[in-house]
């Protein structure tokens, strides 16, 4: 008998007979953390369970509720389970039915999502099940009904699954507000959260607590047993290691051999474009005709479900997947996880590795496949991070005011509210714990009248005051409208891709289609397609013939920047030659050459190299702050160089490096990188940036200023974009401090522009800039220069530059300022 099993037998005595019997029947011993969860329930405490995938985590979450319900709970809703994914809720429901049936428990468990039929949803409100499994959006909807107090008053426990994936997002903020509401309706309700291992459990405890502040007495933290250590290695490719690029095509033959050697493999990639390319190339190599599937967020839902079902049934040998498979459904037996390209973050890598083998005692197997030389360094750093179990963790950001606006409207939909009471309730949600009363009042005023400095809309108020001064919805159509627009996910503008005289294959982003002309080929849904044209908002394609060179979807989606934690590790690795021994030989040689011809980037300061090349002056800065921060930096630096008369011509940014080329050389680097660029220059740039317009659109939709869709009228995303741009321009000019602009700036600063990282870097390097003047390109600068021209459709921050370029093109296209007059 192993020590663990003996341990299990001992704690098993803490379980009621049918439950102990059920465990014994299956030959299982309850894990210690499962018992601890039961104890927490006895003590009436909330609980945060941090455990790797596979340790019976879900059962641990439900076990206390099952026991209480078996002991006999009053009728009505007892436990609410919330999952970030619809599919996960359905899957968990299935797993939950097994113990309920096998023990013959008198428990009714049901799911409720956007897919649940109307009649069933009606019945669930009238006659609720004991356990309801749902999503944050469906919960928000439930809370907006006037019968919410009746529904939730009996609630005894809320279980939040994959909390690490929800906390820190807008969906998480909406959920936190919803839970604050529930705490008012059911004051004795406990909260239970399940999470993967995270760097900052204190933030999750605070999130879970009913005060919004970390309090170890109120939230008991339970740590699941560590699984067996994963066996992770970096592919030591025999092929020539590329200088740049992210597709790792060079190594796919070796990846294919690994797939052949293992039972089932998940091949994780970072972007959908990578998914398409990798899938396409694996099939070219697929001599044995293995069943290899493709899974990413742009594919049609039916196709994704088909792949998931095939995977669950063990009919696939491999699936190429993006983060669409990061979470959720338990695949019974995955033998190997392959990560193509650098993992970008240690936590993410650990999460992905955890997808292999959900049997906790067997080590997961994972293989990292770097696509270029810099990625070798990043993979190495990530591997060390996994071995030492250090994780990425940024402090949580304050909750969005747009999300709060949605919640305020939802609260009013359920019935009149008192502003003071609602404020007291809202600040018990961790993301809003520090919310100022003034901001809260502004949000309420926005919901009521639009909150404009020019108080023009008194007579078209959405909220009016009743005799007690409480806010109530002014007309029933506002309630309908709210329910049609619930949620915080605002999709990018996408267009459906349809085979001519065939099915819809999925959706791609509008901007990608903008770059296509009829006849262009691209890979999508694993097929080489030829673009035929647009019919209304449908992209019509045919299957392309022959071996033409495809134009690959260059999705923005899924392009996560390198985390700060990993960036620090890469810098440290570069600076410490003792660590180079473990690197592949070409990479080690590359670093030695760099040391010989230039210098290596220091761990603390900033290395800047300058050199002439083809009549231009190049500046390469080794910042290691991630692509988003670098793109913002590029905008600001070129702006400043423009003013100094240095005639900058362009820039390119990767996760590691930024390169700028100009007609004249930079002389004063301290001045160029001075922190004051985050003042006026940033303000001026942000104000014009189309980035902010997009952010504003999301904020405006979430806050309920503009609709996703009208009852009976589907609005296309395109029209929404157009309208919100006009609104943004007008609002910025005439009401610059409006609450939605404040929310937009806050979002842009935290989500998109990565300003915090940028300002951190500028502070760190002050006085520590090392300038190396060279007469030619350095070895370390080769990858970034190869990126020039490759990024034809690039990320968000540089589209201002593209716009300027396009305006020049317009001039070029016409040749003269005016078109010739046509003959009359």
């Amino acid at each position, binding site marked *: 008998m192993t020590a663990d099993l003996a341990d299990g037998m001992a704690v098993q005595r803490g379980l009621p007979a049918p439950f102990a019997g059920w465990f014994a029947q299956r030959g299982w011993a309850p894990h210690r953390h499962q018992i601890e969860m039961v104890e927490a329930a006895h003590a009436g405490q909330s609980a945060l369970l941090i455990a790797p995938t596979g340790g019976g985590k879900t059962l641990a979450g439900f076990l206390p509720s099952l026991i209480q319900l078996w002991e006999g709970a009053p009728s009505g809703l007892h436990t609410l389970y919330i999952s970030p994914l619809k599919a996960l809720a359905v899957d968990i429901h299935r797993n939950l039915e097994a113990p309920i049936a096998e023990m013959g428990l008198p428990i009714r468990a049901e799911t409720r999502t956007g897919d649940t039929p109307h009649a069933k949803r009606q019945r669930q409100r009238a006659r609720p099940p004991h356990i309801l499994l749902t999503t944050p959006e469906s919960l928000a909807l439930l809370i907006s009904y006037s019968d919410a107090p009746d529904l939730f008053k009996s609630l005894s426990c809320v279980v939040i699954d994959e909390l690490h994936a929800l906390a820190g997002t807008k969906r998480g903020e909406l959920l936190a507000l919803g839970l604050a509401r529930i705490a008012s309706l059911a004051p004795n309700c406990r909260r239970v959260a399940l999470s993967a291992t995270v760097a900052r459990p204190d933030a999750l405890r605070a999130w879970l607590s009913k005060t919004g502040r970390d309090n170890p007495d109120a939230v008991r933290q339970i740590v699941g047993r560590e699984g067996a250590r994963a066996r992770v290695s970096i592919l030591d490719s025999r092929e020539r290691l590329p200088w740049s690029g992210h597709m790792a095509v060079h190594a796919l033959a070796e990846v294919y051999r690994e797939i052949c050697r293992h039972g089932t493999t998940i091949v994780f990639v970072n972007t959908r474009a990578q998914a398409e390319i990798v899938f396409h190339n694996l099939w070219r190599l697929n001599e044995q005709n293995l069943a290899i599937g493709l899974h990413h967020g742009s594919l049609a839902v039916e196709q994704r479900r088909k792949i998931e079902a095939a995977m669950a049934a063990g009919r696939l040998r491999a699936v190429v997947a993006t983060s669409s498979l990061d979470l959720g459904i338990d695949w019974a037996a995955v033998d190997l996880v392959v990560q193509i390209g650098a993992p970008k973050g240690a936590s993410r890598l650990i999460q992905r590795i955890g997808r292999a083998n959900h049997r906790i005692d067997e080590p997961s197997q994972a293989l990292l496949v770097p696509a270029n030389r810099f990625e070798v360094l990043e993979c190495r750093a990530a591997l060390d991070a996994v071995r030492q179990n250090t994780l990425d963790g940024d402090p949580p950001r304050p909750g969005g005011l747009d999300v709060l606006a949605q919640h305020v409207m939802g609260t009013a939909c359920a019935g009149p509210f008192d502003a003071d009471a609602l404020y007291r309730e809202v600040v018990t949600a961790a993301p809003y714990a520090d919310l100022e009363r003034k901001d809260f009042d502004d949000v309420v005023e926005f919901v009521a009248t639009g909150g404009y400095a020019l108080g023009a809309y008194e007579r*078209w108020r959405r909220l009016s005051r009743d005799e007690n001064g409480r806010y109530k919805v002014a007309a029933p159509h506002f309630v309908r409208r709210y329910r049609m627009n619930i949620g915080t996910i605002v999709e990018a503008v996408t267009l459906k891709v349809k085979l001519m005289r065939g099915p819809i294959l999925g959706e791609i982003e509008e901007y990608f289609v903008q770059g296509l002309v009829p006849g262009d080929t691209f890979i999508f849904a694993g097929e080489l397609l030829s673009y035929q044209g*647009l019919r209304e908002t449908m992209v019509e394609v045919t299957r392309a013939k022959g071996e033409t060179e495809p134009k690959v979807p260059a999705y923005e989606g899924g392009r996560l920047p390198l985390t700060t934690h990993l960036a620090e590790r890469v810098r440290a690795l570069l600076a410490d030659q003792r660590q180079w021994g473990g690197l592949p030989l070409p990479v080690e040689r590359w670093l030695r050459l760099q040391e010989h011809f230039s210098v290596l980037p220091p761990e603390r300061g900033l290395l800047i190299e300058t050199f002439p090349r083809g009549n231009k002056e190049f500046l390469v800065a080794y910042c290691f702050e991630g692509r988003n921060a670098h793109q913002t930096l590029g905008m600001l630096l070129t702006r400043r160089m423009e003013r100094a008369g240095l005639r900058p011509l362009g820039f390119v940014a990767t996760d590691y490096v930024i390169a700028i080329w100009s007609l004249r050389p930079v002389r004063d680097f301290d001045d160029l990188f001075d922190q004051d660029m985050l003042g006026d220059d940033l303000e001026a740039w942000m104000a014009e940036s189309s980035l902010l317009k997009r952010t504003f659109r999301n904020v405006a939709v979430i806050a309920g200023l503009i609709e996703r869709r009208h009852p009976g009228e589907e609005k296309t995303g395109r029209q929404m974009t157009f309208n919100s741009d006009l*609104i943004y321009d*007008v609002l910025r000019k*005439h009401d610059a401090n409006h609450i939605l602009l404040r929310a937009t700036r806050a979002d842009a600063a935290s989500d998109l522009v990565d300003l915090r990282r940028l300002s951190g870097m500028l502070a760190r390097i002050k006085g520590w800039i090392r300038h190396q003047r060279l007469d030619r390109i350095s070895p370390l600068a080769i990858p970034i220069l190869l990126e020039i021209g490759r990024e034809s459709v690039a990320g968000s921050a540089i589209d201002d530059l593209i716009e300027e370029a396009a305006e020049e*093109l*317009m001039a070029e296209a016409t040749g003269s300022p005016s078109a010739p007059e*046509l003959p*009359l």
Partner: protein
Amino acid sequence: MTSTLRVNGVDLVAEASGALIWPEAATIVVADLHLEKGSAMARRGTLLPPYDSRATLDRLEDAIARTRARRVICLGDSFHDGDAPERLDAVEVARLVRLTRLVEWIWIIGNHDARPGGRTRDTARQAVPRAWGGRAEAVVTFGALTFRHEADRQAGPGEVSGHFHPKAAIATRARRITGRCFATDGRRLILPAFGAYAGGLDVLDPAISDLFERGFHAYLIGRATVRAFPSARLSPVW
């Protein structure tokens, strides 16, 4: 930034603001102001920022001052709906009245529209209170140019109109650019909407493009520039 064009032998300037300048006649022409569209939306529950009329009049005032125009022609749909004049803020009304006193002001109205001061359902868009100044005309002709709200298929050369809110898109190597546009074949000219919240219709839509039998040029408004493109070079707007 502007672009010059010629209609029926008359030299005109297309401004990035969306206004058309006729320097020789010291005249400025704008179409489809759609004043108070914001409050019209608010009435239906979408509480858009109530600054669209102010923003539109700001730009119009600026264009008048910049070009020292002595005459302003508004090509119809100046107000978003029949009640719009009642909703217009007193400050903006005062500003409008000051402008109509400053220069010769012509409110063009459509064939179907009520005369100023009158109110009929759904045709009252152009109904401007008499006290606000300016004179209302269905059609007005100065020199070689004739101004009306909506293009008339039978019209001879030199017709200038609005109504359609034309927009155009061009594909560049980098991305597609979409914006409001002027459209002309040298015989007739259609202006973009000037109103801050006015949407648009693809200039390639047959409702507009059929008016130009032998093709046309779209003067696309960029961020700060206006550039001409032959209709054959345009991409669909969506």
